[in-house]
Each structure stands twice: as structure tokens, then as C-alpha cells.
């Protein structure tokens, strides 16, 4: 199946989809209530099944430096009133919107992250959407990547108006203009608290001079350009060093409509291009105009929008779509920003992938069938080790393997399978696969049996090559991320009531704990150390570890949760058991009283 780019542009559609829900207008309404309330305030409200929670933009002091924004949220979180209201809202709603304007927006983002982490830990199905209006940037590229990796990007929607300076401020090093910044923040805050709904326009006393405004405007514009060009370069190299970095979806709104952009580098560039067309005074007032924009885009579906008379519409669906998106972003074709903006929208798409997730998943089924024979060969290898006279089991056979063609082949297969699964995870993290991919039983089961079969070989390779002496033990320092992810998938799968709980009739096909051998390796080390350890406290600890492992392993073997290679006569595990028995009997001879005074450690 050849990769084929979708011939359509949809950044505008997503925005109009969002705008035809009540989410934006309700959020904004609540934000204005919160802004008009006391500083450091928040309000919550339930509409139907949806709970809304809005943070006020107003607070005291310049919080945009150092860890101010984080401290602000931590301050909220520690307050009793906040905890009570949030808990009540979470418990009473099927879904919640966390929202905030200006600095309230960053608090909202942090709050949403906090809730998402919490919900993940309790496997809750509550939906969370964070909608911010003119929020400053919050974190760096690492935060942005972490959010992408957790697939939380879709839970964040930042509304940014065409000229608003606030979301762009943190592109600039602000040390040089703290005084202007101070004025600016105060001006905004006074305007906001003065503009409780229905009481707009009471002009605050503090104002920046025209010249200072102009300086600030060009300073921010310039910094944004700088970051933007760096971002373009970095997008190519896939690394980013700029301090602040956007995450989630950005809805850019203008007089003409709205577009939604997801890719971080494109967000930065669009911010720059839209800002370029503004001027010093509108860039400050635009921060206060979200009510106007939200109203505008929320009712745009009623009007027929089309191209201006006389404009030529490109024949290609894609080109035409880009032109329409450009129109909605409020950049007219005559402006110098038009060309770069078009390129930026195109690039945003280019960085997405080519095929639809369902087709990717379908294609992956084919690729899986191509690598499954590798797995079958490893199964074959495992079975032949079981039959072999050496009685080593496939773990030890592989660990002690020579340079035969067969050993080489098994190792190749192991690497090929790892490559395949890493690829799957990469696609998943890039949103190239269906969102419920990791819940589909086919993939959960296949990844699980891959893990059970092949991870022992990875462990064997780790200890064979002596990597544990450099990096430390496998469990803590050597385990590949993919196995941890597959553990999570398996743990989160839906387990029906008919799940088998009866005893096994024979040894399992594959050891059910894929890290079993890593534990054996550590236990072997403990056993070796016990002989040479003289410090009584350390010795006691070693014995405790050994006994714990012994109990654990015995239970596993008794329940037949291991495959039969574990109990093969010459396997590492059998040897370990043997050695432990010997050690105990030796100690019995040396210290016949040992079991009595230390009974609990020595069963």
C-alpha cells in the first residue's frame, strides 16, 4: 500500500467543529466571571453533565518570572476551598472543562495536567478538556514532548487571538523589560476586574507610553521571529533547546474566522506571522478581546463565507483548502506574511503522517505477519532446547550460545522483532495509529506473547555481554521501554468475568513473568555475595532478598506459571536452587544453632 497524503486541509474544520459546540462560549463566560471576582479566585459550575472550572486571570505580583506560575497553582492546590470544589465537580460530572484567561490559563493548564496524572493513576474515564484564552507559554520542549507521548495533546486547546502579545511574551528574554511588563500586567488586570460582565470600558489609570508600547511590540515580534526560525531548523533535527515551547492544540482566531494548529513548530511560526501584521496598541488590547472573538467564531456557521469576489480559487483541493485556512487566519493575500503562512500550514501537514490511522493499523497487520515467522522460529528454538540433552533451557542456551548459524539466526530474529515493535510504538506516539490501538485485544495479546517469549533472550544478552557490570542490573537499568509499555497494556486490558482461575494442568507455554530470569540473575549475585559478606546488617538484607525470591519462585513453579525450561536440570534457576540448598546445609554444619536464633530469615 503506497503512502498517500490526504488531499485535504482540515485545520479550519477542526476550529469550526469546536466553535459549533457550546464549550468555547461557556468557558469564556465563566472566565469573565472569574476575572471579575477577587484576585486568586476561581469559579465552578455544572451545565448538564459537563463541569466547568475557571481560574481568574487576576493575581498580585509579577508571577511570570521564575517559578511564579507553578507556585501560583501550588498555592491553589493547597487551598481547602479549591480541593473541595474540584472534588465535588469531578465526582458530579461525566466530563470537565478547566479554563482560564491570561495567567489563569497557565494555572488551568497545570491544573489539567495534575488532573490527567491523577486520573491515569486511578484509570478513570472522566474526560478532561483544558481551554485557555490568551495564556502565556507554560513549559519547555520536554514538557511538550511528554504531553505528546502520553497522548494528552488532544486535551489542551489554547485560544490565541491574532494580535495578542501575551502568548508571545515568553519567547523573549524578559529581564530587559521588567518595568514595561509590570505596567502591562497591571493594566490588563485592572481592565479585567473593571470589566465584569456588562461593565466594560472603564479605563484604568496606568498606561504605557506610545513609545514604550512600540518598543515592546518590536522586541516581542523580533524574539518571536528568532524562536520561529530556530524552531524550523530544529524541527528538521528533531531537537529543541528554546526555553518555552507550546503544547496541545492552538486555535488562532481573527476577524475572519479561526484555524486549529497542532504541530508545535507551526504554532510558533503562525504566532509570529499573525503578530507581524499587527501594531503596538492592538497587540495589548487584543488580550482583552476574547469575548468578541469567541462570539464571532461561535456564530460563524450561520453565515455563508466564501472567497472574495474576483479571487481565483486553486483547482487542487489542497491548495484551495490552504487558501481558505489562510483567509480564516485573517492574513490577506496581499500581506507579506501570506506566503510564509501558507508554507507554514503546508508544513504542518507534512509533519503529520500520510495515511489514515485505520489504514496504518491494517497495514501493520501485514507487517506483523511478516515478522511473526521470526517469532515462530524462536519458539522452535525454545522447543529444541527443551528436547536437547544439555537440559539448559532456552535462556541459558542463548546466554551461553556459541557462533553457530542457528544461534546467530535466533539473535537476528530477536533484533528484528525489537525493531518491529519499536516501530509500532513510534507510530503510536506520533499519533499515526488509531487512538484505541493499545486497547485492541489483537495487539495487546500479540505484544504480550512477544514479551513473554523474547524478553528472556534480551535478559540473556544483557548478562552475557556483561552490560550489568557497567550499567547495573537489568530490571532497574537495562529494561527496554517497550516492555514496560506492554506491561501497562496488558495490565489495563479488559478482563472478562470468565477469566480462567483454575490451576494449570501442565507448565505454561511461556513463563508468565517475563522478568523472571532477570530476577534469577540478581538472586545469583546475592547468593555469591552472601558467602563473602561479613557486615551483619548487609548480610541480613541479603538473606531477606534471597528468601523473598525463593518464596516467589517456588510459588511460580508450584502454580506451573513458568515454562518447563525454567526447571530444566541445568538451567540457571535449577542451579541456583541447588546452590542455595548447599549453602544452607553448609551453614547448618558450621553454625548448627543458626536456624534457632535467626529463624525468620532461615526457613
Amino acid at each position: 500500500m503506497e503512502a498517500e497524503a490526504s488531499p485535504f486541509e482540515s485545520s479550519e474544520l477542526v476550529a469550526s467543529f469546536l466553535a459549533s459546540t457550546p464549550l468555547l462560549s461557556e468557558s469564556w463566560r465563566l472566565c469573565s466571571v472569574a476575572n471579575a471576582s477577587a484576585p486568586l479566585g476561581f469559579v465552578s459550575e455544572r451545565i448538564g453533565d459537563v463541569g466547568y472550572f475557571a481560574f481568574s486571570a487576576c493575581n498580585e505580583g509579577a508571577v511570570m518570572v521564575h517559578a511564579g506560575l507553578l507556585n501560583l497553582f501550588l498555592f491553589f492546590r493547597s487551598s481547602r476551598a479549591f480541593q473541595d470544589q474540584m472534588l465535588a465537580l469531578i465526582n458530579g460530572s461525566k466530563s470537565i472543562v478547566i479554563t482560564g484567561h491570561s495567567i489563569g490559563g497557565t494555572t488551568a493548564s497545570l491544573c489539567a495536567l495534575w488532573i490527567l496524572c491523577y486520573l491515569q493513576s486511578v484509570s478513570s474515564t472522566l474526560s478532561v478538556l483544558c481551554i485557555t484564552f490568551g495564556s502565556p507559554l507554560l513549559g519547555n520542549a520536554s514538557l511538550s514532548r511528554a504531553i505528546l507521548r502520553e497522548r494528552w495533546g488532544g486535551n489542551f486547546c489554547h485560544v490565541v487571538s491574532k494580535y495578542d502579545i501575551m502568548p508571545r511574551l515568553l519567547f523573549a528574554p524578559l529581564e530587559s523589560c521588567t518595568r514595561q511588563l509590570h505596567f502591562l500586567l497591571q493594566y490588563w488586570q485592572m481592565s479585567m476586574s473593571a470589566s465584569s460582565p456588562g461593565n466594560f470600558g472603564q479605563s484604568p489609570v496606568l498606561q504605557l507610553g506610545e513609545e514604550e508600547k512600540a518598543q515592546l511590540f518590536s522586541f516581542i515580534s523580533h524574539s518571536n521571529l528568532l524562536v520561529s526560525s530556530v524552531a524550523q531548523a530544529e524541527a528538521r533535527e528533531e531537537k529543541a533547546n528554546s526555553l518555552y515551547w507550546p503544547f496541545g492544540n492552538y486555535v488562532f482566531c481573527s476577524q475572519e474566522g479561526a484555524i486549529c494548529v497542532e504541530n508545535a513548530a507551526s504554532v510558533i511560526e503562525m504566532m509570529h506571522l499573525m503578530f507581524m501584521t499587527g501594531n503596538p496598541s492592538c497587540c495589548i488590547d487584543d488580550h482583552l478581546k476574547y469575548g468578541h472573538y469567541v462570539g464571532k467564531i461561535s456564530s460563524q456557521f450561520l453565515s455563508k463565507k466564501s472567497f472574495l469576489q474576483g479571487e481565483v480559487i486553486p483547482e487542487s483541493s489542497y491548495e484551495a483548502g490552504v487558501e481558505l485556512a489562510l483567509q480564516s487566519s485573517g492574513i490577506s493575500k496581499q500581506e507579506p506574511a501570506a506566503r510564509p503562512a501558507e508554507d507554514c500550514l503546508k508544513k504542518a501537514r507534512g509533519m503529520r503522517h500520510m495515511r489514515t490511522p485505520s489504514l496504518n493499523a491494517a497495514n501493520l497487520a501485514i507487517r506483523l505477519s511478516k515478522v511473526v515467522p521470526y517469532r515462530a522460529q524462536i519458539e522452535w528454538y525454545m522447543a529444541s532446547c527443551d528436547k536437547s540433552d544439555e537440559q539448559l533451557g532456552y535462556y541459558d542456551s542463548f546466554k551461553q550460545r556459541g557462533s553457530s548459524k542457528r544461534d546467530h539466526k535466533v539473535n537476528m530474529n530477536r533484533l528484528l522483532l525489537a525493531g518491529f515493535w519499536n516501530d509500532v510504538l513510534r507510530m503510536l506516539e506520533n499519533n499515526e495509529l488509531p487512538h484505541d490501538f493499545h486497547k485492541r485485544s489483537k495487539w495487546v495479546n500479540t505484544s504480550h506473547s512477544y514479551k513473554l517469549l523474547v524478553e528472556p533472550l534480551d535478559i540473556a544478552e544483557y548478562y552475557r555481554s556483561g552490560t550489568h557490570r557497567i550499567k547495573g542490573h537489568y530490571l532497574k537499568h537495562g529494561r527496554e521501554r517497550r516492555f514496560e509499555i506492554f506491561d501497562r497494556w496488558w495490565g489495563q486490558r479488559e478482563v472478562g468475568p470468565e477469566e480462567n482461575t483454575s490451576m494449570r494442568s501442565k507448565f505454561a507455554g511461556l513463563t508468565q513473568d517475563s522478568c523472571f530470569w532477570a530476577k534469577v540473575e540478581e538472586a545469583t549475585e546475592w547468593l555469591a555475595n552472601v558467602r563473602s559478606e561479613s557486615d551483619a546488617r548487609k548480610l541480613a538484607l541479603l538473606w531477606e532478598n534471597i528468601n523473598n525470591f525463593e518464596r516467589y519462585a517456588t510459588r511460580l513453579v508450584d502454580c506451573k506459571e513458568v515454562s518447563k525450561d525454567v526447571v530444566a536440570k541445568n538451567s540457571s534457576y535449577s542451579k541456583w536452587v541447588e546452590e542455595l540448598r548447599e549453602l544452607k546445609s553448609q551453614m547448618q554444619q558450621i553454625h548448627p544453632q543458626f536456624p534457632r536464633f535467626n529463624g525468620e530469615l532461615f526457613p
Partner: protein
Amino acid sequence: MDSGTLGKKIGISEELIKKSCTLSLSYRFYNELLFHVDNSSSDAVFIVFTGSWMVKEWFSGDQAFGETRIDSKDWSKKAFPSMRSIGNDDVAIVNQAFLKRFELVSKGSEFVEKVTSAVDGKKPIIFTGHSSGGAVAVLATIWFLERQSSEANTGTAKCVTFGAPLVGDYIVSHALKREKWSKHFIHFVKRYDIVPRILLAPRSSIQQELEHVLRYYTANGHHDQLESIAPDFYEKVMRSTSFLASHAAEKLKRNTDYSLLETITNFTKPSPYRPSGTYIFCTGTGKLVHLDNPEAVLQLLFFSCQVSHKNEIIRSCINAHLDYATELERSLEENVVYVDRLEKLPPASDGSALDDLAQNARGRLCLRAAGALEKQKQENQQQIIGKKATMEKEMKVLEEYRTFNAQKVGYYDAFKKQNEERDFAANVSRLELAGIWDEIIEMLKGYCLPDEFEGEDSWIELGTKFRRLVEPLDIANYYRHAKNEDSGAYMIKGRPRRYRYPQRWLEKKKGWESGACGESCFWAEVEELLKLASNDGEVNETRAKELQERIAKWVEQGVAGKDVFLEDSTFLKLWEELGRLKLQQESIHTLMTKFTKLSVS
């Protein structure tokens, strides 16, 4: 785009359409009557459904959009067996109130009788209705076609509606296409008529306004009141239409899962209803536009209804619903424009009749996307067809493997033992085939193949062959690795969808109940019973009896191999255990002596 007279293209003459319209409009307010049969024409019998004009007759039940599963009642489950997505095992959703109305119709003694006599009279039947009557006509037509297909009767039926609200969800449209019934449904919709869009809005948002509007239609309401609520009503319906249309369009156009979209739909649910069948839009300028792509129709429902001024709403959007006769009278004389090959539609207006509906480049791009999706589905199918040769080749390998083992260890048991190199080779063939079929299943799951796919005999046959040949090997593999002890019985925890889907296809085609074609997985039941029996567990008598009867039947029909009865087969082990438990069945005993030279105890 193509134009020509309507009659030829859709198989119903202008005269009959006009007559349907006249009848539909004149019977719409007959509240005491559910339907009317008109025999006055020599060319067709008309069955006209009257409208219902109370909010509770549009929205009932406690769902947000008044929807219900079509199999929610026993009678409807029997009446609409095809209204589902077969492999995915999803059942169609329809409007509960309209379904109820049709229940009243069909339960009356007269209806079935009249339909039967119409069929006997060899005249085509036209089910027709205006507004909600049209919605009932749709259900009646589906009911009729379902009966026809099972009775193999050759009557023709058409459904002609005027300004009908939507009746069912995406699966209805999918199933109509699969059964090749889409062309039987012809929906006339006036461009600005608000009614076909009403069900796209949740009841809670429009209940009050809808009450006024419906009362206004039955001439009991006041114009003054309407004037104050009409703009609100229009705005709410259009907001929901926009919500749904942009959601659908995003899905048409997207090249990625947009996670923001998923999040938003957790907050606001879009309406489940989708257009189905064929639509003919009346442009209001004397032209007719014919579309048979339901996705495109949905987009057009949104893009063609935007009005320029608020004060046009009552005249254009509300009143339009009542007046289909004059518009049709005028337009039927003109040529109809057929919109196909939507993916080639120019984004700028091109002077065709479609301009009247959607001058807007945004709308036209959405129509293009709808066309492109359909084309993509065709291409996906082509790509799978390209793999047929590989499938045949690998299946041949397995057939030879089966023949090789038929007299010795048995197909199933040889594979389960995996003693020989050729067993390993068979495993590789199995995996190759599994990959191809898994891809097909994934595509079906995402509706990435043409709707007709699951109804095509060639695929049903291939799927059945594949299922019978390869599934025993999957079961052997499963029990060989004792996966049942890791996660549970094969049938519950291990059976891949690549076998479930083709089994459902065959059962649907034969009209059998679900589970009737389980011949490919009887080994799983053998293994489970054997496990129970050898663990001294309780073996359910009916379960043992049923298994033996079924095996006997399948071996005799030749859909299961005789190697079942080989001396060392897993089945023989079970047979011995059953002997110990005194659960052996005579029927199978006879069969065993017949097929093997063994004398079995």
C-alpha cells in the same frame, strides 16, 4: 456531472413521482389514519403514510436524539435482519418514535394483507409520505425488501419521500448499500426545508420550539409566536448540523486521528442520524440535483441551508416544508443534474445546478472529500484483490498438508504436535494468510472498504474456505501452547476476528442464526471438554451431546474432515473419556464405524 430525465435514471417516471407527491401531501394531516392505499393508477400501487405532528411522535424514549437499536424489540429484530454491519456485529440505530409508528402500521391486520395483494397484482409498489410520513415509508420499504429477499419474490418497490426527517444511523445507509437497496429510496428535499435537519439536534435543545413549529404546520399555531421562536429554532438546528457536518467532514478529510476531536465528542455527542439512499435536492430555482453519496448529502444538508438574512427564515426554512407540490411541478420538467465523481468537482462555482446549492468553496471541498473517500474505498478493495493470488497459493500449500495428514496423524493433531519440518512450514503459511486477513478485517472495522464488500459472494466463499481450512490450525496452535491456561478458552478469549467475520457473513447469507456455522471451531470445544473430562471436572451432558451431534452433522456434510476419527486424534481421547462418563452418542458411533475400519468401543 451528467444530466438527463429523472425517470430513466432512477427507474420511476415523473408521473408517478408527481402522483406520490400529491398523495403524500393530501394525506399528511389524516391523524386518525396510519396509511392509505391508492389503487387508482394502472402503473403502480401507492401506499401513503400519514404524518405525525406531536413532539413525542418525533422524539420518544430517554435518549438524547430519540434513538433506539433496531433490534430493541422482538418483532423488529425479526423484521429487519439485514440492518446491521455484519462482521463488526453492530446493529443499526433508528428513531424510536418512527419505529413505533411503523409497528402500529404493520401490526394492523390490513397492512400485510394490502401489501400482499399488491404484490400478487404484479404492479410495482410505491411507499410514499411527506415529513414524518416519509420516515415511516422508509421503514416500511426496508421491511418490504427484507421480506422479498427471504421469499425470493420478484416485486419491485420504491420509496419516495418529501421533506422527510432522517430515520437511521450510518449502519442503515451501510446496510442498504450492501444489500444493493439504496436505489430504491428516493428522498426529495427542498434546499431550505429545515425538517430534514431537525433530528440532528438533541431533543433537549429544541423541544419547545419544535412544539410551536409542528403546531404551526397543522395550522393550529400562530404566526406571531412562530416569528419569535423561528430564528432561535433555526440557529439551534443549524448549530447541531454544523457540528455534525464538520465532524463528518473532518473524518473524511483527516489524515490523522485528531485527538482533540475525540476529546470534544466526549463532551457533546453528535446526532447518530445519517442520510441513506438517494437524495434529490430541489434548488428553488427550478432545478433538481441528484446525489447518492450519503456523506455528500450530509455536507449538503449543512452547506445549502445557510440563509443570508434572518427575516428569510420563516418563509424559506419553515414554510418550505409544506410546499413541495409547486416546486416539483416546475422542476420535473427540467433536466436533472446527476452529481457523481464528486472528487473531481471544481472548488469554484462552475455554472452548474450545484452552484445553487453550494457556491461556497468550503462546502464544495467537503463534497470533494466525500467523493474521494468513496474512491479510496474502491482502491483499497483493488489492493486486496491483488493479494488473492498469494492467498490461493498459501491455501493450496495447506490443502496439500491436510491431504498428506488425512490418513496418518490427522490435520489437526499433526499441526498440534509440530514434530516435522513441514508442520513448521504449514505454520508459516498460516501466519502469511492470517496477516492478509487481519488486514482485511482491520479495514472492515474502520469501514475502509466499499459497503458492498461483505455482501459479495466471492468474498463470502473465499472467507469460508479460509476459515474451514485454517482455523483448526489456529486452535491447534492455541492449545499446543496451552494459551487457554494463560488467558481462557479459545472461543472466549482466543478466537481471532478473521474467523468470526467470515462466519457471520455466511450465516447472514444463509439467513441462519448466529453460531450455526461453527464447524471450523469444533476442535476448540473438543479441547475444552477433554480438559474438563480429564480433570474429573463436571462435563455438562447437553454440551457433550450437542458437540457430538454437530460433529456428526459436519462430517457427513463434508465441511469437517474425517481425520477427526483417526486413532490418535484428540477427539478419540475425548471419545474415550466420554465413554467412561457414559456420555457417548449413538449417532456418532455409527458414523465412526462407517468412516474408519476401526472397531470403536
